[in-house]
């Protein structure tokens, strides 16, 4: 189980870079160092500095450590599908203006700025018909 400052595996890095580069709001992706990326986005959307990790459950302590290591970070993403963020980890990030995401949620959050970015939640889907947020009619 990796810690917040452990380099992510090569396959995960390749996956991350390919997926982010293909996001329709991302103009460019620059790797700053082993775990840091700078994302420029199109239009008025602000740049995002991402900390990439593979922590199983990103906790409040992890968020504090990452921000102490790189105060410019405004997004933390834990890459593997089975990873997640604790409630307190998410809250600790929001208090510091840092979005804390699973990879899937980061892809959604990149469409927004501000509070909608920090607190991005996927649209609810109607499981019966697979439509967005329309309820079960």
């Amino acid at each position, binding site marked *: 189980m990796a*810690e917040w400052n452990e380099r992510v595996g090569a396959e995960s890095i390749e996956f991350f870079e390919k997926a982010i580069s293909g996001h329709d709001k991302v103009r460019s992706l620059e790797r700053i160092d082993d775990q840091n990326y700078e994302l420029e986005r199109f239009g008025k959307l602000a740049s995002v500095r991402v900390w990439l990790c593979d922590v199983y459950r990103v906790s409040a*302590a992890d968020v504090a450590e990452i921000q102490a290591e790189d105060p410019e970070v405004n997004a933390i993403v834990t890459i593997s599908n089975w990873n997640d963020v*604790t409630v307190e980890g998410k809250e600790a990030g929001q208090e510091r203006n840092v979005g804390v995401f699973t990879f899937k949620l980061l892809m959604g959050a990149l469409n927004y700025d501000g509070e909608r970015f920090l607190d991005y939640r996927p649209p609810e889907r109607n499981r019966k018909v697979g439509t967005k947020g329309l309820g079960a009619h």
Partner: protein
Amino acid sequence: MITDLQNAIVKWAPRALGLTEIRLFGSALRVASPRDLDFVIVYDKKVVLPARANGLRLKLKDAVGTVSSLPCDVTLFTQQENALNRFDVGNGRRLWPQSFE
């Protein structure tokens, strides 16, 4: 090995402010020669702020390092995080406080 870990941890843990529990989980509980050691530290955030909790991680690694050279990964959870995630991470084996049941 688990007894050695417990003995090393008990030399430090009772004096560690805010520390409420240490558990070992993962392959160290299942195989004779694990590749690494996975721990969960649970702390009381009223005593230790999350921003200061890394000190507990470092102290645990120091203690483990006296009895094992295996890489050591430590998850730090507040009591609330532990309550919500312990079944995801796995209950593991509690090393401190020791149970004498």
